[in-house]
């Protein structure tokens, strides 16, 4: 049997009971198979009392199928969906902290923020916080553009996703 060894990005949506330790139960399945989690987000779902985890991983088609069945086997997991990027609408949020003095030097940062469809979230005499939502590539592009001006802090959230299928 020859398995397809091409890796690609998958978004896994898990609907779980909201129990202590559920995240641990889920993540050890990835650990055991040497799969690194690229991003993870946990929140309430549209159904009351049911929690939703959104996990992004890079792995093979064959492996993701096995992982899906293994996750579904967990007693506290209700349902697991696996999607490729073309099947979902997804978004991440990123925050960037830059020194205010850098902004005052020229209007370059302002124009980067405008052209990137980002926004100033907070402005203080010492620093500004810029917020950008988008795909990982978009938020990374902005990071690269701001980098010459000294990014003091950068953080990106886990992916949240909704399926296109109705």
């Amino acid at each position: 049997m020859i398995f397809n060894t091409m890796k690609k990005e998958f978004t896994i949506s898990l609907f779980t009971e909201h129990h202590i330790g559920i995240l641990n139960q889920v993540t050890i399945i990835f650990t055991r198979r040497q799969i690194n989690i690229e991003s993870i987000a946990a929140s309430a779902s549209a159904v009351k009392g049911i929690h939703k985890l959104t996990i992004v991983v890079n792995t093979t088609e064959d492996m993701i199928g096995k992982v899906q069945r293994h996750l579904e086997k967990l007693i506290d997991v209700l349902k697991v969906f696996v999607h490729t990027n073309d099947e979902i609408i997804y978004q991440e949020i990123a925050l960037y902290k830059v020194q205010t003095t850098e902004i005052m030097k020229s209007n370059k940062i302002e124009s980067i923020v405008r052209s990137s469809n980002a926004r100033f979230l907070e402005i203080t005499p010492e620093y500004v916080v810029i917020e950008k939502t988008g795909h990982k590539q978009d938020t990374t592009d902005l990071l690269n553009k701001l980098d010459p001006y000294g990014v003091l802090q950068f953080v990106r959230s886990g992916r949240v996703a909704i399926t296109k299928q109705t």
Partner: protein
Amino acid sequence: MAKTIKKEKITGAKALLYSLIEENVNTIFGYPGGAIMPIYNELYDIEDNKLNHILTRHEQGAAHAAQAYAMVTGKTGVCFATSGPGATNLVTGIANAFLDSVPVIFITAQVTSTLIGSDAFQETDILGISMPVTKWNYQITQAEEIPKIISKAFYIAGSGRPGPVLIDITKDAQMQTLAFNYQKCTHLRSYNPNIPLNPADIESAAILINHARKPLILAGHGILLSKAEKELMAFVEKTGIPVASTLLGLSAFPAKHPLYAGLLGMHGNYGPNIKTNEADLLIAIGMRFDDRVTGDLKRYATNANIIHIEIDKSELSKNVEVDIEIHGDAKEVLKALIDQVNANSYPEWLSGFKSCNKIEANKVIKQECYPSHGKIRMGEIVNLISEKTLGEAIIITDVGQHQMATARYYKFNNPNSLITSGGLGTMGFGLPAAVGAKIGKPNVPVIAFIGDGGFQMTIQELGTILQYKLPVKIIILNNNFLGMVRQWQDMFFDKRYASTELVNPDFIKIAEGFDISASRVIERETLEISIDEMLACEKSYLLEIMVEKEGNIFPMIEPGSSVSEIKLC
């Protein structure tokens, strides 16, 4: 729905015991300690005929005993241990039950809830530790949760693909009081073990079966777990298809049946391994294509369509890509299939198995089971015991060469009569498993084959045998080696016997210290009479048999080889 309500408030500890009684438990294996004392204190008041507690000599022993008890009785086993080291000592036993899909409820005590996370005395994160080797685990910090969680634990452990469940109960939850109200768990929204059969799958499987010319059944532990032995027999007798067995599937189908083809895998029989790659159809029932069964996956079942009947969806197409996945309980699936398959016979195909058997008999079995000279062989001992007990005993093994010899040469007649450590291969399993099996089936002879290495891993359980006067028969097959590792060193590491030779104690003297009758056999001439003496003894008995020091188990599929490359010598 069974419902019990008691008005007066009782402690969490007592509620736990009442919950166990509600679940029809009457035997607990365990070991007390600090954090679990409130439970043992309540146990003191409960009559032995309601809840009989077996004090082992180590928590690992309690875990293995509870598993063996579950395997011979078909009930869910129960095991108690205290927090910290008590809980961590269970881990090997939990993992063993997990890999072999045996329902056992492990109750561990935990330090008082306010101390959790403070590195309190004997505090350990047993939830985190046991998570990868349990079907489910949960920590109770409030007494009110106890009845509900215990009923959930039994429901999860025993249904679907069974497995161990660990419930950790803090000391304060054991001591708080509650109004006891027990309701059996019959449903969970996140877990549905009752899988509806897909009629289309059954139909396609039946078509493949009816058109096959060289079909072979691979029978696994799932047959025993689903209690589908009768359905398997009916299916086999109607279709005329030969049955090969996995290690844990042994005893699901009687070895003396003309359609029994033998043991699969690394040290299995010649026929079923060779024929796996000649078959045009494999019907795998309640088994998981373990690497010890399949050998090299790329060259496995090269000519066959595969139908895989399996209750655990995550096992389907995990190791082997199959043609028809039937997700369901073995008993239900076989019932549905029987009506749709044709009565058939495969005389030519079966005669091929017979030829293989002849080859194996000449090249391996004759020398192993009927040697005329040289040191005593493991095979001849197992074969003698098999004949003398008519295949009716409950046989326990430890792990290693003696285990393979037992699996190969004992002719199992009754379901659940082999208790062995399969998936995890846990040395030290045998002696405590014999304890659990004897307590579960006191009226059936229990005979444990154990190597000199594995025996010393859990030798302290002789104390349990002494305390409860358990008439188990222990046969030590002594080659003064860790035999299976030595065999691999012989075959694959240029005979460099690194740390496999054992200097052993006097096992007879040790047995005497535990008030166990014992004798040692060195010469073939006294073998049979010593076995007779052991079998006739009404009390526990230890028989040490000195066997060939450097005997190897054959046939063998070497690691990385295909099943069809099985070697006879």
